[in-house]
Each structure stands twice: as structure tokens, then as C-alpha cells.
């Protein structure tokens, strides 16, 4: 117990607290911006960020990872908020948490192995693009005034320029403080955070969502909750992998699923929106020296304290300053290396990545993009494995007996090639099909073998099958070899 406390909480106190502070400062503009995306008051995102950061600090499976209100989740809930209002969002958030806890209990975290590298890259890039696009309404159309654009550009210059001067103060914070000061001093006519809705004026209080507990409510919120749960777990698992890589440590995926669930239930109960792990903030945390659970706890607590006590000042932050910070987040989240890799990676990998991005950007739904990406990866894989098939044959000296030898994988994508390997036009007395070196994976393969045998018989040949048992050993469903410890040896033996 004490040992765990030391290992996960107190081994890096100074680094964690400092990093937590930096993260909290970066979280405030993000939480506000994501609330704006979702169409709710800034306080919904801020309360959510506090609750989620604090709860995942205790319940999460990945020390050093930062979770809060996120863009990925905000994008999913837009239409729910628009059509049904905030209370339904809170109810959906609760349900999301419950679904995620169930996922953790059933150990679904391990399903992440079906999500390939290309899909992850596509997800991350799509997320960056969506965050960027979400900033557009603030700087285009009626808002595209010179003063707005100038503020954004100055903000970006501060964010990216200041680290060259000093790395001891968070530059996004300086950007916001400076631009807010200038905007107030000069009385610039800029939209501010206060114009976006209510800010937190007190510590969060527990409240139950004000929705009727009917089947109809469930019908409304369930599809959203399911998507939110999936998107939240996907981004959390991906972030977890990134932090694992960065810190060269391992984490507990299923505990993370449950932790995200508990955090969302907590967020829903204090009037916050659903959230998940944040790639950008987690990277900032690690970069600032945060490694332990304390960093997430510190981030959550500092965020709440600052927002509650500095609420009046936060309301004065001009929106263009926030836009600058969010553009930084988008740029930092995007995987720029993946653009260069497009030329060198296999085409199928690039297609999967781009398809994921396109589907997400079109549907604004990260879950659908990932689904398409995973399906495409599976199809490409099936096609490639299906190419491992060869049919050879030898004719006996009298020309009446042909022996076919089949090598490789026979399943739904390769049955056509399998049948093409036989010459049904030849007039023969006997045909021997040697399947010793083939693997039959599914019933499509078996039925195509039946077809070949019947065709030869109709032509009057006697057909002998050799090695059928070995070949069909791969039909694990039927023979259930996967239950036996030596199943792999059996499959690979021939």
C-alpha cells in the first residue's frame, strides 16, 4: 500500500506539481474552447475537466496521463445538446461512464490490438484537423475582422516565440494574459469568453440530471453514450500507448477503461460533459516533467481553484487568444511525420490512414472513422494473406492421372485462385489432390473444394484427396483445436 503510494504518487513530487500547474494553465483555454464546440456554457467543460483529471488521477491505469473534457468527445455531443439540451448531455455522460466501466470489467481494453498503427495515426490526424476546423467560425465570416486575425497571429507568435527566450513559463499562459491585458487596456472590440456563457462561480455541487427516467430518454441518449464511450476509450487507449512509449513504462488498459468510466460518471454528477484522455495535454505533461498520478491531481485542483477565484478575469479572455492556443494544440496533435511516411509506407497503410481521416472529417465522428480504418486494415490483410496460395500439378507418364498439390492459405479471398489452379477440361482417369501443405480456414474454402471434386467426378475421373485432415485442422471452430495447448504446433507442423 505504502509502496504503491511511493511508486505512483510521491516519487517525483516537484516535477509532478510543476507539470500539473503547466497543464492546468493549458487546460483552461481548452476546456472553454471545447465547451464552445459542444455548444454548452464554459463551466460545463471546466467542471468536467476538474472532475475527470482528479478522478483519473486515482482510478486511471496510466500514471502521468491527463484526462479532461476533450474535442473528440465534444464533437460527438453537438447534435445532442442542440436538439435536447444540457440535461440530456449530463444523462448521456453518466451512461457513457457506466458503459466504459462495463467495457473495463469485460476487459475490452485488449481489443485495441485490432486497431493498427495506420488507424491510430489517422485518428490523431483527424482529431487535429477537427480541432483546427472548430476554430474557423471564430476567425471567418462575420468574425474575420483585421483586429481578430491580428490578435490570433500575435498570439501564435508569442506561443511559438517565447520558448526561444525562456522555457520556465508556459508561453500559452503568457499569450492569454498579455492579450487579455491589451484587449482590456485598449478596449478592443473582441468577443470574450464571458460572451460564450456562464463560468463557474462556485465549487462544483452534486446534482442528478433533470431528465425523465423513461425508455424514451434512454432511446435518445443511448446512441450518443455508446459513441462517446467508444471514442473516449479509443483516444484514451491511444494516448496511453503514446505515454507508455515516451516514458518507457507500461500501464493497465482495463483499469484505464474503468477509470475513464468512473471519471465520466463523476463528471456527469457535477454538471460536466463527458471527456477522455488528451493526447496534447499528456504530451505537455510529460514534456514538463510530469510522470506520476500527482500531476493529474495537481492539474485538476489548480484548474478549479484558478477558475473559481479568477472567474471574472477568465471571462475577459478574448476569443482570438483562445483560438491561437487551440491552433497550437491542433498543430501539436497532428502527426506531421505521417505526411512524409506516405511516400515510404506501403500503399495499403496510407489508404487506411487517409480513409480514417476522411471519414472522420466528413462525419465528425471519430468512432466511424476508426471502424472504417479497422475494416479496411482487415480487408487488406485478408487480401495479402490470400496471395499465399499456389497450385502445382504433375501428369503421370500414361497421361491419365494428374496430381495436384496445393500450397498456402485457402479462405474466402483465395478460393477463386484455388479453383483457377485446376484444369477441369483435361480428360483424366484419376485425379489426386494433395492438400498436405494447404490450410483451409473457413467454409468457403471447404465448399470450393467440394466444387472442384464434383466437377472432376462429373468428367468421369476418380478423385482422391490426400492430407485433408491436416489441411482442415485450421478450421478451429469445428475441431476446436484452439482449446488445446499444442494447437499452434499442430497448425504449423505441416
Amino acid at each position, binding site marked *: 500500500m505504502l*509502496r504503491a503510494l511511493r511508486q505512483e504518487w510521491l*516519487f*517525483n513530487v*516537484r*516535477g509532478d506539481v*510543476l*507539470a500539473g500547474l*503547466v*497543464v492546468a*494553465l*493549458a487546460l483552461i483555454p481548452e476546456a472553454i474552447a471545447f465547451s464552445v464546440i459542444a455548444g454548452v456554457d464554459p463551466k460545463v467543460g471546466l467542471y468536467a475537466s476538474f472532475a475527470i483529471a482528479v478522478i483519473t488521477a486515482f482510478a486511471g491505469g496510466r500514471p*502521468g496521463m491527463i484526462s479532461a473534457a476533450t474535442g473528440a468527445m465534444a464533437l460527438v455531443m453537438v447534435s445532442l445538446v442542440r436538439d435536447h439540451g444540457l440535461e440530456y448531455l449530463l444523462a448521456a455522460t453518466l451512461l457513457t461512464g457506466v458503459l466504459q466501466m462495463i467495457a473495463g470489467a469485460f476487459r475490452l481494453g485488449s481489443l485495441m490490438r485490432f486497431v493498427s498503427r495506420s488507424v491510430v495515426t489517422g485518428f490523431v490526424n483527424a482529431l487535429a484537423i477537427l480541432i483546427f476546423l472548430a476554430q474557423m467560425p471564430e476567425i471567418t465570416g462575420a468574425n474575420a475582422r483585421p483586429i481578430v486575425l491580428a490578435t490570433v497571429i500575435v498570439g501564435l507568435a508569442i*506561443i*511559438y516565440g*517565447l*520558448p526561444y527566450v*525562456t*522555457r*520556465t*513559463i*508556459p*508561453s*500559452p*499562459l503568457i499569450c492569454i494574459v498579455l492579450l487579455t491585458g491589451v484587449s482590456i487596456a485598449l478596449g478592443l472590440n473582441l468577443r470574450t469568453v464571458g460572451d460564450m456563457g456562464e463560468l463557474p462561480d462556485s465549487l462544483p455541487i452534486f446534482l442528478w440530471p433533470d431528465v425523465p427516467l423513461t425508455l424514451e430518454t434512454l432511446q435518445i441518449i443511448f446512441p450518443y453514450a455508446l459513441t462517446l464511450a467508444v471514442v473516449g476509450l479509443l483516444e484514451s487507449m491511444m494516448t496511453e500507448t*503514446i505515454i507508455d*512509449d*515516451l*516514458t*518507457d*513504462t507500461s500501464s493497465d488498459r482495463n483499469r484505464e477503461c474503468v477509470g475513464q468510466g468512473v471519471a465520466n460518471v463523476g463528471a456527469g454528477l457535477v454538471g460536466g460533459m463527458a471527456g477522455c484522455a488528451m493526447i*496534447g495535454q499528456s*504530451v*505537455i505533461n*510529460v*514534456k*514538463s*516533467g510530469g*510522470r*506520476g498520478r500527482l500531476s493529474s491531481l495537481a492539474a485538476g485542483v489548480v484548474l478549479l481553484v484558478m477558475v473559481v477565484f479568477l472567474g471574472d478575469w477568465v471571462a475577459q479572455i478574448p476569443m482570438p487568444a483562445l483560438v491561437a492556443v487551440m491552433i*497550437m*494544440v491542433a*498543430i*501539436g*496533435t497532428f*502527426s*506531421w*511525420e505521417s505526411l512524409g511516411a506516405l511516400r515510404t509506407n506501403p500503399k495499403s497503410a496510407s489508404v487506411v490512414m487517409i480513409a480514417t481521416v476522411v471519414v472522420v472529417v466528413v462525419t465528425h465522428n471519430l468512432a466511424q472513422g476508426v471502424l472504417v480504418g479497422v475494416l479496411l486494415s482487415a480487408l487488406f490483410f485478408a487480401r495479402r494473406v490470400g496471395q499465399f496460395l499456389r497450385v502445382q500439378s504433375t501428369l503421370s507418364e500414361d497421361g491419365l492421372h494428374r496430381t495436384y498439390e496445393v500450397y498456402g492459405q485457402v479462405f474466402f479471398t483465395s478460393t477463386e485462385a484455388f479453383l483457377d489452379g485446376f484444369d477441369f477440361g483435361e480428360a483424366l482417369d484419376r485425379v489426386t489432390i494433395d492438400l498436405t501443405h494447404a490450410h483451409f480456414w473457413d467454409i468457403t474454402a471447404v465448399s470450393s473444394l467440394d466444387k472442384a471434386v464434383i466437377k472432376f467426378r462429373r468428367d468421369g475421373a476418380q478423385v482422391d484427396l490426400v492430407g485433408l485432415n491436416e489441411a482442415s485442422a485450421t478450421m478451429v471452430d469445428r475441431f476446436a483445436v484452439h482449446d488445446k495447448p499444442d494447437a499452434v504446433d499442430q497448425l504449423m507442423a505441416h
Partner: protein
Amino acid sequence: MNDLTHSTLNPGGKVLACIDESRYAASVCDYAKWSAVRMDAPLSLLHVIPNPPGGTVESEQNLSGTIGFGARNRLLEELATVDAQRSRLAVEAGRHLLAAALERLGGEDLPSVETRQRHGELVDALAALEDETRMFVVGKRGADTEGEHGHLGGHLEQIIRALHRPILIAQQSFAPPRRFLFAHDGSETARRGVGMVAQSPLLRGIPCHVVSVGSDPKRFASAQDEARDIFEAAGFDVTTATVPGEPQTALPAYEAEHGIDLLIMGAYGDSRVHRFFLGSTTAAMIRSCRVSLMVIR
């Protein structure tokens, strides 16, 4: 029973000594050498390089809070470089420790000696090597908790729980044991322990005290008689005794009185709950013990 004997005794295995930078390293070496010679077993010196505790190097701390183009890859690159430097230093330092240990061993009367290094937690490293090991030798305290009196080496309790082979826990000074004490609580595990010790060449010929702790000597009479028979059949010179009191106080007193310099005890208890409570008795025993001791599972 046969199975269990097999899983706890590994006659072909090595004596594995855990070397670290603590003051216990020298006596760990000596005990390991003594054990390896007596059992005619190969000796393996192990140094475990702990994972970096995390956190960045102070001068590298970057609080700018920005993430720019390719932020993840660049950060990964930076962190990997820092860790690589730290690891190289740690590996280098460990090699020196192992070289010093080898020198201390001398090596002329040993069957075979090897040195090895592993990354990670000590417990995981030992568990990974358990199959090839006959007996572990560790210092009572590790380098990180050295000197905190009455405080166990942070890893020791975990090690005892995780491993199934005998573990010799060395005090700071070494002398070949002249008399050893077998703590017998009358349990089935202790009975098996008697068999294990009697079979092993490690302590053969060293006078043995079979001691039970309890107010009623009759309770342990049959167990002690059985132990006496087994030990005597194996050629040991046996004394039996039952002392009143608590194990943590009664056994050290008995040791001091009779000049015992090695204590053998079981980490008993089968069920989880059992182990939870009895495990802490084992820990208390190890803490209060002033002589080296061997824990058998």
C-alpha cells in the same frame, strides 16, 4: 509432496547472489561462496539495474507548455537520449560492483562463477531467473534503505512472497555458521522444511537446534521428535527445545544464549488471508533477527 519438493528444491540450479551498492554486498558474496562450495553448485552474481525513477533531469525541465510540429517524436527522442545516458552509467557502475565481487570471491575453490546484469525491478528479475536457481542470497537491506534500523529492505518482503526457492538473507558480516536453529511451528510446511534441510548438503555436519515457540511443550513434542529422527538419520547433531513467548523475542534470545548464527524459518501460510497475517509475522521475525537467516517456502 513430491511435486512441492521439486518446485522448491532445484538440485541442478545455481546459487544466485544479488549484488548492489549497499554494505551488505560483501557478506552476500561470502555467504554465496560458502553455499556454492558446500552444495557444489555453480554461482551466479546478479546486479539489477532499476528502472529510472521517472522525472526529467532538472536542467532539461521544459515548462513552456507548447507542443509544436512533430512534438511527440522529438520528445521521445529527447527522453530516450536521457535514459540511454543514465542506463549506460548504471550498467557501467554495476559492472564495477560485479568485478569487485568477483575479486572478493577469489574463485579457486568454486565450481563455476558467472556474472550477469538485468534491467527492471529486483523482484521481477529474480522471478525470471527462478527456474535456473537453487538458492537466492540477498542482503537484509538494499542500498536505498541502508541504515534505517529495524526497517526491512524495501524489496525483501515482496521477494519472499514472489519466490519459491530458499532465500538466504545475509547480515552485514559473514562467518561460516557453527550452529543453526530450525524454527519449527509444528505445521506441515515446517515438517517438509525439515526434510529439505536434512537432504541438502548445505548444512550437513553443522549442529542443529530445533526450536518451537509456545507455552505448552507437549504440543510440539511429536513434531520435534520427528524432526530429531530425520536430522539424526542424516547425520546431524540435534538439540530440541521449546521456549515460551513470542517468536520475535523468544527466538533471538535463544540464539544469543546458544551462539546460533543462522536461523531457518518457513514463510508459512497457504491461504491468502493466512499469508497476509502470517506473512507479517515472517517480516517481524526477519526484522528482529540479529543473525543471518534462511527462509524456505
